[in-house]
Every structure is written in C-alpha cells, then in structure tokens.
C-alpha cells in the first residue's frame, strides 16, 4: 500500500511522517499545490506550522489546492490521518467536528504522554494495544466540541497536557475514515528515539487497506 504525506509550506513533521509510514508501506510526499494524490491509499496531514499558524492554526492550509483532492478522497471513504497541525487542518476543513484551542497553560508543551485507545474498532486503531506512549508537542491542542463526537483516543488519567475536553486526544468522523490526533505516532516508531507504540497506528492503516484490496 502507499501513504501520501501532504507537505504545506511550514510543515515540520512531514519527513518524520514519511519515514514512519515507510516502515510499513510505500510513502511519498504530496506537494500542497498539486491536486493529484498520486494513487495514495491513505493520506497523512503531518504536524508542523503550516503557513506559520498565522490567522489560526490550520485555517490557511485548508484552502491549499491539495486539500480539494483530500476532501474528495475522504468523501469517497479514503483513510485520512491528521497529526497535530494536521488535526487542526482537518477540523478547519470540516472533515472532523470540533476545534482545537490554546492549551490552558497558554504555553507550548512537549511531553511524552500515555494515551488510551477509546475505540479499537477504527481503521486507525484496530491493531493497537489499549495504551500507547506517544509524545505531544503543541500550543493549540485543547480539543473542544459542543456536539457529541466519536472519541478514538483519550489521555490516560492524569496525563492531559492541554486541558482538552473529556481528555480527548483524538477523534474520527462518523464514517470512521478520518482521524485527527494531537499526539505524534510518527515520533514513536523507533526504540532509539523513544517508544515504538506509534507504529500500531500505521500498521492498523496498512491492515485496513490490505483488507479493502482483498475484498
């Protein structure tokens, strides 16, 4: 299978996501001005500061040409994973409900946190253990939604780094094919640099795409 990793101006964790995805499948960077997803089976919107987070995190990136193709791809049931800034972009693009607000500390926070899988029945968590150790690093990560949402990941008790509503670390859309999360699974794929728990997210995607191909 092939992952397509979108690169906006200001994306920072794009190559990290590329390398992480390449551990479980093929992976290619997608340029923000192109509308062609180059045959990718799953799309990753990576972390970073697209367009400098100017105006509002993710608010400008959603208008990039590549997002038109991503929105179509998601509407057709394609898997879309938004990590950190990618989560913010997906909320801005209307692919996910809710919004991400400033951390209650009003500061950027980096921390290795424990995250519980609240919903193991998604294409992104089907191969995941119940608890993951992943790093968070953001200033705008406090999830808020006035409507009920499908929660996929929650910070473990006492681990919430940003004041997120109901300890929410990641949510998906109703159809279950679009996931946004603040923790960084792509920074937890190598024992040398931390935990390897993040691989489970990428492996879940591969397993799901593999099932689709067989079906």
């Amino acid at each position: 299978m092939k992952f397509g990793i979108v690169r906006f101006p200001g994306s920072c964790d794009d190559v990290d996501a590329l390398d992480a995805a390449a551990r479980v499948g093929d992976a290619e960077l997608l340029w923000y001005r192109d509308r062609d997803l180059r045959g990718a089976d799953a799309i990753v919107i990576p972390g970073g500061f697209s367009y400098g987070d100017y105006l509002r995190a993710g608010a400008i990136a959603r208008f990039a040409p590549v997002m038109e193709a991503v929105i179509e791809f998601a509407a057709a049931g394609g898997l879309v994973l938004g990590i950190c800034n990618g989560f913010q972009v997906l909320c801005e693009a209307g692919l996910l409900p809710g919004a991400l607000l400033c951390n209650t500390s009003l500061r950027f926070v980096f921390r290795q946190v424990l995250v519980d899988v609240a919903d193991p029945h998604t294409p992104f968590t089907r191969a995941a253990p119940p608890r993951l150790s992943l790093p968070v690093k953001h200033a705008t990560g406090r999830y808020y939604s006035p409507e009920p949402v499908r929660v996929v990941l929650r910070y473990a008790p006492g681990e919430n780094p940003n004041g997120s509503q109901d300890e929410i670390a990641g949510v998906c859309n109703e159809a279950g094919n679009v996931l946004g999360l603040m923790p960084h699974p792509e920074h937890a794929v190598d024992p040398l640099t931390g935990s390897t728990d993040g691989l489970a997210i990428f492996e879940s995607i591969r397993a799901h795409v593999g099932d689709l191909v067989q079906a």
Partner: protein
Amino acid sequence: MSATSSRHRGLSGDSQRNAARHRELGLSDHEYELIVTRLGREPNEVELAMLSLMWSEHCAYKHSKRLLRRLPTDGPRVLAGPGENAGALDLGGDLALVFKVESHNHPTAVEPFQGAATGVGGILRDVFALGARPIAVLDSLRFGDPSSSERSRYLLEQTVAGIGHYGNSIGVPTVGGEIYFDPSYEQNCLVDAMCVGLGPRRRLIRSAAAGPGNVLVLLGALTGRDGIGGASVLASSELGDGDEAKRPSVQIGDPFAEKKLLECCLELLDRGLLISLQDLGAAGLTSAASEMASKGGVGVDIDVGSVPLRGPGMAPFEIMVSESQERMLCVVAPDRVAAVLDVCERWETLATPVGKITERGAGARFRVLDHGDSVGELPVALLVDECPLYELQPAAPQSSLYPGTAPVLSPKPAPAEILLALLRSPNIASRRPVFEQYDPVVQSRTVRRPEQADAAVLALAPPDAGAGAIAVSIDGNGRRVACDPRAGAAEAVFECAANLACVGAEPLGLTNCLNFGNPEKPHVAWQLQEAVEGLRAACEALALPVVGGNVSLYNESPDGPILPTPVVGIVGKLPDAARAGQLGFARAGDAIALVGPFAPRRAGSELARLQGEAPAGALARKHVPAVLEAHAQVRSMVRSGALRSAHDVAEGGLAVAVAECCIAGGVGARVRLPDGIDPFGEDLGSAFVVSGDPQALAGLPLIGAVGGERLVLDGLLEMDVEELREAYGGALGQLLR
C-alpha cells in the same frame, strides 16, 4: 565617481552636522578622522551609516580580534573555520557538521520575546548559509536573581517563549542548553543560541563572492525599518535608562518565512545554482555584501532601488543597514538567475536581483546606487579590514569585582539542609519547566533528550551515512570564571567535553561566545585576556579546533560588568547511537564508582553562593593528563556498554551529582564518599559518577551501590529520593508561574 559629483545625492555637504553624527553612530573622533583621511573627503550619510556599522565592535571585533588569534583553529577535520558564517567539520563519508554559537544579548534585554526568537533565527541562517540543514538548537541563558527580581522572571519567561516560538515552528529541535542566575545579569541578560547542522560535503558553500558580471540576488523577507542601527546603537554600547526608546531597533522574527527560506536555499544548493551564499545579520545588506566582496577580492554594486521594501519612503542608508530578518544574499551566474527565481517561486520566497559583482582587485569598490544613481562609494577594504584594532589595557583587580549576596542558608546547616537547598537552587534545579516548552524530537534523530543524559545525542540516520551519532553540549559558569578567569574558562571546556564523554562521544570541535563587560576597562580587559588564555590551553590539551563563535562586549550597567561569561559549545561523535550513555542510575545492585582526579574546593561553588560569599578564591588546579585519561576511560566504557550510567560531577559537587543520578533513575543509592572529600565542593569537568555491573566496574574506585528508595551518604545524610525529586523538580516551575 568623485565625491563632489552632482549625482552624489546622499552627500550632506554639512561636515559639522556629519561630525556630530559620527559620535551618535558610535564612531570615535579618531576613527572618523581615519575615514576622512582615507577617503580624502567627508563620507556622506549612506557611507557614514555603512562605516559606523562595519566599524562597530559587533562587526569589527576591534577589541577582541588580536586575542582571538591566539585560539587554535586548525585541525584535520576542519572544513571551514572562523570567518565563515559558521564552522564546519568533516565527519567522514561526504558528511559535514556545521555549527556555531552566537549571542543576542542586548536585543533580548530590550525586547525579550523577539530578541530571543531572532537570536535563534540568526544562528539558524548562519548554519544553512553553509549548505547544512539545521538539526539542533541549544541555548545558554543568564538572568538576574529570579527570587528577588520580577524583571528577571519576566525576561526568563519571555526569552523561553521566544526561543520556542522560533525553534518549534521552524522544525528544528531544541535539544539542550543551560541557565544560570546571578545579580550581575540583572540589567544585561545573556541569550546565546547555538545551532548544529548537517549536510553533504558536496553541498557546502562559502560566502566569498566571485566573478565580475555575476548577479547578487536577495532572498527572503521584505526590507523594513527594523533593526536600523542595531549593530552600533544596541550591540556596542552599555545599556542604561531609556532603553525603551531603542525598541524599534529590535528585529521582529517570522519563523514561517525562515522555514521557506531554509528549504528554498537547500534546494538551490542541491541543484548547484549558487556560487556563494551569505545570511543577512547585523548591518544587513552592508555587512553581507561587503564581507562577500572582501572574501572574494571583488567589488560590488547594489541598487537600493531594486530592494523590495515593506513600506514606502525608506532612505538609501536605511535600506543598506536594515536588519530585517529572514533574508539571504547569494551570487548567481547570469544564465542561472531564471532558474533561481523559479525555485524561489516554488517555495513562495521572494527573490530579487539587487546588484552585481563589478571588478577584481585590492582597490575594489562597494557602490550603492539608487535607481542607477550613485549614492555612495567606498573601498571594500575600508569597510571590512581597515577598522583600527585596539590593544587591551589589562589589569588584575585587587579584590572581587562582584559583591556577595544575602545568605540563603543558616550559618551551620546540616548536610541534608544543604543538599535540599542546592537542589532547589535555580542554578541547579531541574530545567524541565523550560525545556517542556521546546520540541526536542522533530526530525526524528533525538536519541538523548534533556535530562536523559549530560549531552544531547542525535542519530546519523540513513541516508546520512552510517549508524553513528552526534553529541553536543553547551557550558559556561561565569561565577567560576569570575573567581579565576583563566582556570574558569579552561574548566568550562573540560566540563563540556566531560558531558560528551558521558554519552560516549569524542569531542571534535568547539564554538564559543565570549560575553564580557566593557573591554576598555582594565579589569574587564584582564578577565577577557585571561579567559581566552584558559580557552586556548584547554582546547590545545583536548586537540579541539575553535571553528567559530562570537564576542559580546559592553555587557555592563551602572552597577558594574556581568560575570565574565565565556560559553563553549562542543560537538562530538560516537560510533553507535544505541549505546549512547544516560545519566540516571538504572538497576538496583549496580556498583557506583567515582572516576577521575577529583579535587573539589569550596571557592566559586554554588554552596559558597548560597552562603552569601562573593565569587573569589582560587579554583582547583587541574592535573590535565589525568583529566584527559578519565574522559577517555568513561567514553570507552560507555561505548563498550560497560556502564549503565555516567554523569559528570559539576555544580553542587559530588553529593548533588549522586542525587541527580538517583532522581533521573528513580532509584536510591548508598554511597560512602572518599575520605577528605568536601561533599559539596566543586571541581567541574574532572570526575564522573558512573554505575554498572559490579564485575564491569572492577578496578574502578567504587564508592557505593544502587538500590532502594533512599539516598544514603554514609555518615552524612539519609533522605527519600522522592523528597530530593520534589526539591529538584519544583523550584524553577515556581519561578516561571
């Protein structure tokens, strides 16, 4: 073009007004007379602005250049040394390591958030100007006493936020650093940022301009009025009252613009489109173009009329000296300009031809045009090389220049009370509340984050070549340099190298930032001279080339100079990232040993400070061969996997070092200190607390064993590790509320 030409629109023609202005711009009467003699006329406004900046202490190093020549700069691995934007070392396998530390002290004292942010932005540009991708940032910070000074707490908070704002959003991990507090930094905080970059050797590029007819292309942000006069007004005079009026002199950072500029420059270099590249820092276009011209032995024309401006109405001299951030200048062959502009368009980075290389030769001129009309013309050599260098007039002070402070400890404290006070000291306590605001993992190389080991470790992942790793650390303790500038500066180098030994790395090269007071004062001149001598001796002992850095002088307020603060950054290499050392005790039952010729003294120690003593008294004299042997032994045992932890003994002495190993590992220890050793005395960079299997440590001087939940120092104290952890972990956070 003669000076009296009617086309010389910038010429004031009023030499009296000009003569008063040169002083305002920081030139002495003597310097101004030299300029007039050399030119055979008065300089006009444009020329005076350019000269005043190029002849400032910040750009010309006029009080330090002669001293700096004493530092060793050569070595078999050196690819680029002082004079380039940053130093570069050969790592083998077509890989180059590029690094430099630079101060942004005065801008941060005036506006801490933007001052610190643009300090990071500037050092990043220095590194990618050579063609390396920045892979790590470290910061060395100094502030006044945070417990009594609200201003220092504000500066700390804003500085940390500014560093994070820039480093986090540009995608370069902040992997280490250090912070000290002392009342002498109250009016002059220090913010020294270090960047390490990595790139293929074949992509390395120099800044020397070449080839008459080639085009100068300005890359990046629009040019505005920010930072005008920054180099002369801000960086080269003492701070005093009314600094708010200097606020417009501080630059504003835009990390998004720099992120695009970084990717754009690396792509231009990958495609082989550039002849030379230089970042715009202090003195903006003036400094960048004149230094490129000087190094290449060529002349340049720059037309300020073609420089894209942020707003209308900027005078030619303002355009020439603007310190707007996120700009680079490159030399491009005429037939490649279109290709360069294409790449820049792809990265949404502005690129504009603004001038050309004109002539070769010793008399080459720097000409400033405004829509084709000449508004200034100076010999390149006058701008770059002819600023007079000054001899220091050093004199050792009779007594400490720095007063003692109110004691924090009771007159006869118990050992447990001392240990807790040291762990709570803002100079020793956990830096977690600070580094939690920085991203240390982006780029997926970070094998050792802050508090995991004494030095940061960054993997050389494929496709870089091999499985090795880079280690980097930054150090400097002004209090100890104040006691004894020569020994203290040397100690900073040994201490930094010891940090690298703890992760198994061999030091390869050094960069430094010399932060001192007013060098025209004899005591400060003496501190500077002695410190450089100490650095020289230590670098020679370690065979470490000094490949770059900077000097920040005039860090002085009406209360006196800052502590003399040479900061050193050392980079090194280890063969196997998976075997990088860590600092915490790891396993109950492991033996603990003290390796190295440890000769601690109370003078200059953190405990002496807590007891209200002035920084005075001789530091321990190091037995250098024995210190080097200890470094080599620890390095080799970390590499072989014989040690499960390694930590160098630094501030707070042996008791604090052992406590830090317990806190980091979350486990207790029982230790019997060697007879006659002051548990809180200091001798930085000489000795190590290591742990490992008892068999693996056979032959080392054992002092105890890992285990339990308490730290027991036989005959001295017995405390819960949890209590130590709370003292150590909570102190800085309370100051950063």
